């Protein structure tokens, strides 16, 4: 017992030292970043440089990563640094002072949290929209072709919890078409709903078009007309506490440009 606990303490010490080292490293890198962005502020007008910190909804991860790389290529000397996560937790981070230049949210409701705290500079604009789609296991063995098919007995369907945006949207679509659907589970976010279908534990899930795209050949998408009743707008806004206003403006313009829209459309997003 004693030797083991000594051993465990040592492991903990090691882990602690490692964590401290990581903290120190990240502190260094972030101070380096702010230095370079400070330099960009003084360098003045047209040319942008430095780091743009973008907080973006998890569903934007693939598209924004591509856009970030392209942006860096077009503006040498810039670096786009992303933090992807659930829109509401990102919003909470921003209102409690997280240093970010741009916020791209998956719903106007979560963006409103940030604008409500007056943390945005200028009004948010909708830059893409996302529509629901049914994800089934490959080959669609249960021949699902509409939302109504999911209400039939014997099908294991997962929905997002009503408290998260994809669940609220699914509920809206169900209500609009007067359907009642009893899932086997209300998942905590859209990705875990998709995972249950990818692992074939569930027969179908109601997710976003972009998630079906991201699922590749592990899932098959089925479009349904009721999804038009519940389309999600994605707003983007510049943040007041951001350190690199010029680059932030340029990044938002790039996301909204024809080129940016094309990249996002490839992920399944709709034009705003």
């Amino acid at each position: 017992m004693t030797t083991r606990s000594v051993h465990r303490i040592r492991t903990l010490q090691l882990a602690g030292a490692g964590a401290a080292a990581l903290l120190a490293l990240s502190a260094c890198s972030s101070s380096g970043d702010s230095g370079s962005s400070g330099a960009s502020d003084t360098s003045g007008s047209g040319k942008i440089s430095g780091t743009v910190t973008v907080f973006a909804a998890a569903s934007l991860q693939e598209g924004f990563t591509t856009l970030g790389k392209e942006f860096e290529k077009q503006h040498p000397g810039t670096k786009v640094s992303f933090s992807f996560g659930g829109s509401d937790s990102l919003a909470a981070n921003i209102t409690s002072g997280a240093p970010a230049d741009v916020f791209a949210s998956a719903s106007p409701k979560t963006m409103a949290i940030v604008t409500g705290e007056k943390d945005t500079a200028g009004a948010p604009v909708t830059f893409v929209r996302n529509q629901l789609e049914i994800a089934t296991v490959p080959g669609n063995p249960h021949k699902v072709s509409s939302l109504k098919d999911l209400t039939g007995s014997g099908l294991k369907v997962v929905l997002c919890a009503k408290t998260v945006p994809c669940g609220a949207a699914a509920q809206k679509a169900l209500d609009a078409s007067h359907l009642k659907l009893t899932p086997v589970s209300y998942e905590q976010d859209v990705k875990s709903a998709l995972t249950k279908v990818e692992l074939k534990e569930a027969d179908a899930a109601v997710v976003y078009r972009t998630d079906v795209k991201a699922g590749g050949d592990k899932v098959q998408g089925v479009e349904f007309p009721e999804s038009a009743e519940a389309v999600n707008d994605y707003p983007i806004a510049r943040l007041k506490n951001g350190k690199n206003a010029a680059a932030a403006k340029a990044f938002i313009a790039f996301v909204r440009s024809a080129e940016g829209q094309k990249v996002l459309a490839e992920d399944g997003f709709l034009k705003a």
Partner: protein
Amino acid sequence: MTSLDKPGAAARHLPGGTRRRRGRGGRRGVPLPLLLPGVLALAFLLLPLLALLIRAPWHSLPDQLTSAEVWQALRLSLVSATSATAVSLVLGVPLAWLLARTEFPGRGLVRALVTLPLVLPPVVGGVALLLALGRNGVIGQWLDAWFGITLPFTTTGVVLAEAFVAMPFLVISVEGTLRAADPRFEEAAATLGASRFTAFRRVTLPLIAPGIAAGAVLAWARALGEFGATITFAGNFPGRTQTMPLSVYLALQNDPDAAIALSLVLLTVSIAVLAGLRDRWMTGV
């Protein structure tokens, strides 16, 4: 937990075994370099819980707590945590005995593997359970094909997920007690003609009952708070798989007050059970 009927020397298994020190030292003898961080640690551990009490929506609490969903989730939590503890006892005590009392090749490795769920992120545990016992899993597909049993999205799935993360606590606790217990009692029983199993049942088991109780309490508490493996393996459906931690997490997304109220319930239940069991089993040594 009803089979544990011998209170005894288990204080050493609990983190709060401060009886001896309190008896000897007194506050005056405590050096400042120990006192300061110690008090800080205490504050750090208790402050968040205090914040829960301070921010609790006391005026709307009765409404929050009388909803049918809360009781449903609480009942499910208690039933599944207790079932998971029962599973852990039935399977974990023999495993602990094997680890402590027998020699076999690779025993050190087995012991390390047993503790793996302690350090594994619970979500990973949930994914692993899905891959093993899911409808399409390594074993699960045969369960489905032969018996028509599917475990994900069922209450049984919740119990399994909880047992997976909670059982190591019991095994480690019982194994430690077994190592501390004198094997000569068992040997004496053997020389008097008892079979090894009889010796285990009549001599060893009563001897290590306090360790088993301590392990069971730890396992139960861990099972009650289990979130990641449960939501990953068993999903979330009110009344069937939605335990208290799940409903707290989901409530937090749009109704923080409800989440605080639910957290208070879970906190109260945990404290009540730990305190109750502590009085009954862990002290008075």
